[in-house]
């Protein structure tokens, strides 16, 4: 039979863990709703911006069209990997790292290099172990502070376009987790450059002010920044959703362990009482008989 004091201690420890997981679930729920609202609010903005770019794409056919139609020989691809800075979110970071290692393997088989930009250090330390010397990896911060997220996205976008234009990289993609529902999440590879524009039926004569080049120079990094911003928000939504599910499971597990421990505790207590009673009665009998 277990020691009553030990059981009581175990119950107390699991009770405190349960309180922590339950609180984390609530916090993740609030953050999830906030991230969802931000994602929805920026979706319309991103769609309209993309439509404007589609109108430019029709007009724009010189050298910068590489930004829209891509390069034939892709030697180095920039992969922006969105993972988390914190743990306790189930297999969220593991799935990202797993997908990235597969993508990197495919690149290496094709003789290509990767330029990895990690958002969130969980994936950074894992991916660092599997890359080759020809690859490049760096960690960017600022994405997990709500006030800096737009600024950080724009900074990364400007850098990406600059590297693309100076032929350091030939393509930009993002690996992130898309959240379809509270329980369904999938890791996806999203192509950012070449820019994917929805075809437009607008064939009317259009004036571009000041001129197409300047608008492109201004809008392409901005559009990329907005795409990165949206991807970061989607990623944050998935992280919080994953954390909420994990913490919910942890709370349920704590509940079931607590219930088992309480039964064991009560049985032990009952056994002790019965034993003591038996001893008292046997003692009283012995005295009466003596």
């Amino acid at each position, binding site marked *: 039979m277990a020691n009553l004091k030990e059981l009581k201690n175990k119950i107390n420890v699991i009770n405190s863990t349960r309180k922590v997981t339950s609180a984390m679930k609530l916090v993740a729920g609030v953050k999830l709703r906030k991230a969802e609202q931000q994602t929805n*609010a920026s979706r319309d903005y991103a769609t309209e911006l993309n439509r404007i770019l589609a109108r430019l794409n029709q007009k724009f056919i010189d050298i910068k069209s590489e930004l829209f139609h891509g390069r034939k020989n892709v030697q180095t691809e920039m992969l922006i990997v969105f993972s988390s800075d914190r743990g306790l979110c189930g297999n969220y970071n593991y799935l990202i790292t797993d997908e990235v290692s597969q993508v990197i393997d495919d690149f290496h088989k094709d003789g290509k290099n990767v330029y990895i930009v990690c958002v969130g250090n969980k994936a950074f330390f894992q991916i660092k172990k599997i890359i080759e010397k020809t690859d490049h990896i760096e960690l960017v911060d600022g994405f997990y502070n709500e006030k800096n997220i737009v600024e950080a996205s724009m900074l990364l976008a400007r850098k990406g376009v600059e590297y693309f234009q100076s032929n350091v990289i030939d393509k930009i993609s993002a690996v992130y987790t898309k959240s379809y529902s509270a329980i369904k999440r999938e890791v996806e590879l999203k192509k950012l450059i070449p820019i994917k524009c929805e075809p437009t039926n607008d064939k009317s004569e259009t004036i571009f*002010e*000041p001129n197409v080049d300047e*608008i492109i120079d201004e809008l392409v990094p901005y559009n990329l920044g907005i795409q990165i*911003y949206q991807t970061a928000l989607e990623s944050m939504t998935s992280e919080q959703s994953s954390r909420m599910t994990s913490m919910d499971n942890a709370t349920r597990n704590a509940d079931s362990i607590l219930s088992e421990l309480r039964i064991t505790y009560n049985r032990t207590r009952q056994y002790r009482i019965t034993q003591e009673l038996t001893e008292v009665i046997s003692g009283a009998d012995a005295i009466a008989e003596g």
Partner: protein
Amino acid sequence: MNAKILKLGKELFNGEAVRIVVPAIEGEMCLLQNHISIVTALKKGYLKVYRPMVERPVSFAIERGVCSFSDNSAIFIVETAA
């Protein structure tokens, strides 16, 4: 014509307009019904939307942005001061 003014995370205006005064990069311009299709960068200034039957315009102070007008539909992607 229809006007839609968007800033990141918020729709500032969406509705009918009879006249829109735009702080375009090459000078202030006025968009009216059946204006030629145009895509222009915007500079810091006031974007004024005149609604039907309302004398006073709705004004938005913008930092920069881009305007796209075609088929009597104007879309403004703007950045405003924080």
